[in-house]
């Protein structure tokens, strides 16, 4: 199966682990994630201005690209991109005049034909959800593939992970509609399908402080500590997230959290696609593997008997998939 895929900026920069594991895991599921040939930032935050014309232009341009690829679906792994694209898609259909104006604005785009190097100015009109549906990869797994159809090679039993949903994957519920914002279960269900025992905790849908991390880091530390310690007290040994910004707040800041809250010992955090890849028998323990993880995950994986070095490494699998896709740049030289 081939499906157009929008990575978003963060997956190319701070969250390459999310992208690598996503491509590897879906490769193992025989799903080729075809990265859009041209894409920009989605805007990162859903436009809040009254008319939203400028704010909607970028996401609609991205969606139009999926339409040009001839698909009725666009998938994304990042919770923030998902939130912006899905809401923009819905909002776009609501106002016929604005729809016309944005399409007129986007019609000025110029693209260069890859073969003839000719400048092309013809664009299809983008209509809205009737054209392209935005699916988060969790949603895609649940609704298009089916959690019960995942060919699990390695049961993730004994991992004790707590799914942490954050905000943008769930809210505003009326526009996103992925799951019940107060009682989400989609990641629980995925983890169960992979043989893991999801740990429920009350802060699974509390905000991690999001962008406040930049201007008020102390708020982000407090929020993240609350989330991590709550999961810990419910017996979780790790957290699993979908969002790069959540990952940054609850994972990358853990050394600061430990400084501020000495009782907190640290807890590994996974992207959901990393656990999916593990369950599908893809080893992540090499090149790109756990580089972005500041908290050691190997100890936990070893204790759960999940560090099987015999499996194909993610590096190879991903690079193989990457070559076909032309999606993955060479290994980081950092």
């Amino acid at each position, binding site marked *: 199966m081939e499906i157009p895929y929008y990575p978003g900026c963060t997956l190319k920069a701070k969250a390459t682990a999310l992208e690598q594991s996503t491509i590897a895991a879906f490769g193992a599921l025989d799903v080729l994630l075809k990265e859009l040939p041209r894409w920009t930032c989605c805007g990162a935050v859903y436009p809040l201005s009254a008319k939203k014309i400028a704010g909607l232009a970028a996401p609609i341009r991205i969606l139009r690209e999926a339409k040009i690829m001839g698909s009725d679906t666009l998938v994304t792994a990042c919770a923030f991109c998902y939130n912006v694209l899905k809401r923009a898609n819905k909002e776009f259909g609501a106002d016929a005049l604005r729809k016309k104006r944005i399409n007129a604005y986007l019609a000025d785009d110029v693209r260069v034909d890859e073969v003839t190097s000719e400048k092309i100015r013809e664009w299809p009109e983008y209509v809205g959800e009737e054209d392209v549906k935005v699916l988060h990869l969790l949603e895609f797994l649940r609704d298009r593939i089916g959690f019960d159809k995942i060919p699990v090679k390695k049961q993730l039993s004994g991992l004790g992970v707590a799914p942490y949903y954050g905000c943008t994957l769930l809210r505003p519920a009326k526009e996103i509609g992925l799951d*019940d*914002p*107060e*009682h989400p279960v989609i990641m629980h269900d995925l983890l169960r399908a992979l043989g893991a025992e999801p740990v429920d905790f*009350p802060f699974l849908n*509390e905000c991690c402080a999001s962008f406040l991390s930049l201007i008020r880091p102390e708020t982000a530390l407090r929020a993240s500590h609350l989330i991590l310690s709550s999961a810990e007290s419910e017996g979780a040994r790790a957290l699993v997230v979908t969002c790069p910004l959540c990952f940054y707040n609850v994972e990358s800041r853990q050394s600061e959290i430990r400084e501020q809250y000495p009782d907190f010992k640290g807890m590994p955090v996974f992207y959901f696609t990393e656990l999916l890849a593990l369950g599908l028998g893809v080893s992540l323990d090499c090149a790109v593997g756990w580089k972005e993880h500041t908290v050691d995950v190997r100890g936990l994986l070893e204790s759960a008997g999940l560090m099987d070095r015999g499996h194909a490494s993610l590096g190879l699998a991903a690079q193989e998939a990457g070559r076909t896709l032309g999606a993955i740049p060479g290994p980081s030289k950092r």
Partner: protein
Amino acid sequence: MKRIGVFVCHCGINIAGTVDVKRVVEALKGYPGVEHVEDYIYLCSEPGQGLVRDAIKRKQLGAVVVAACSPSLHEVTFRGVTKDAGLNPYQCEIANIREQCSWVHQEDKGFATKKATRIVKSMVEVVRLDKDLEPIRVPVTRRAVVIGGGIAGIQTALDIADAGHEVLLVEKNPSIGGRMIQLSETFPTLDCSQCILTPKMVAVSRHPKIEVLTYHEVVGISGFVGNFKVELLKKPRYVKEGTCNLCNKCVEVCPVVVPSEFDVGLAWRKAIYLPFPQAVPSVYTLDEKSCLGLDPIRCGKCAEVCEPKAIEFDMRPEVFDVEAGAVVVATGFDLYPMSKLGEYGGERYEDVISSLEFERILSASGPTKGQVRRPSDGKVPREVVFIQCAGSRDPENHKPYCSKICCMYTAKHAMLYKHRVHDGTAYVFYIDVRTPGKDFEEFYQRTVEEDRVNYVRGKVSKVFKQGDKIVVWGVDTLSGKKVEVKADLVVLALPMVPAAGAEDLFKKLRLSTNEHGFVQEAHPKLRPVEHPNSGFYLAGVAQGPKDIPETVAQASGAAAKVDALFSSAELLREPTIAEVVEELCDGCAFCIDPCPVQAITLVEYTWDGEVKKRVKVNEALCVGCGVCMATCPKKGIAVRNFTADRFLSMVEAMLED
């Protein structure tokens, strides 16, 4: 040719402020057939009516058009006036130039005047063709079916029966008593709910005019006001009333334990059970859903120990019809499911309970015998949080309406908690405290001032478990500060919603509801106890959230309406019903299926040696809705005084300038 009189009302400035009444009068003068035109400031007043009456007599008018407000308001008045003046009342038509003209065109007086003139002319065309009609007389079955055996149904049944009419009180549960029997004390006087309700339950069961049909459901209805046929389902109890001697041996041996409905799941009952000690009728019921098998080979222990042989496994459901003249809907309420309130735990935490569960905990007959103990570990809670509007007044996520009784019962809950746990602390989170009722505000003030309950103005954002505490996060909007309470017990004031099964029942009875499923009243202010469909009356929360005093008042009101209906042996029905035009109907039968009241049948007859077909209207059933008229391709059926030629001449009059 009919001599027609036209009377234009000013309705103060309601009409005359927008419509130039004098110009309308001028425009009608000389209109074909119009012999008399007159305007008056208030035609509905006594002098106004006299004006119409005198003109009919003086000018020997044969029909009148009254241009005034909606016919739903004063048609009856002016048809009465017409009748007093010696004409057939159906020779009077109302031209609505207020709701349909002056009120909606206030910004354009010229247009309003023109439109009013056209409306009046079109009604002149109608009245020109109107035929004299006589009301249809039908007999009335003086027996009422009251659906629902809670306080609303009980009070209605008693009041109708006391007036000397027969009542069938139908209750789907094994006992009457409804929600009120589950309550502990009642506000604002704190008298015990069971103590004041049980005398009424006994009175109902002993009343010679009332037949109590518990464990029965209404499954269908046909007919019309005064002449309903109600289809009832008798669910098998598997225990013979009268034979059972209440020895309780069956309950002792029954091996099946299920949550008790009466105790809202806080206690257990057996598969064979008496819902509560004062149940009416006092007889066990074997619940077939949880019984190990009505197949006596699997269990049958209860039948073995039953000395009077009252248990009969082969009872079957029975369906039977009863005739009734009126139906009272008193189906009551349920609470909105807590599972939908994820932000308050959504049923995940045992110590987050509904207000009805707290009623059972406070009740002397409840699972804790009235001691305040929390469900999870039976400890006496030291800190209790009450959350008001837990789903009510929340248009974004839950119910937009106010459930009306929660402010008062929460004050009562907090007060009773403090009376029983003196050193405990109670918090109430509220949006506003609404206490409009006799002695209600004083009661609430007592809760705050004497019982020292902490009222926090603000909503609760999250409720979660931490150790054995339930942590409540909220905001105090008066100080603007976040509030955290580590509570032992949290009580949610959930919205009242129509009882489970009510939606289905209302569909069967063809009763309209509002968007939330509460059954519609004929007029929100002036006819609050009747449904727009005549013959149906409303009592209690089925119509909308209300407290006990209001429910009892409405029940008595509904009973008074039923008594008025039953006061004569005959009923006059509107004669404006469908009539077959014999020369045009060819029996194609298109109209039969669309008829919403199944009033049309096909008849065959032989004429000139040939078999012919034609439809026939049952006068008793037809409601004059006109659906048949719209489906007939041959103009072979029409509602009296509502015919197609009238519409055509109305349209012509409208288009003339």
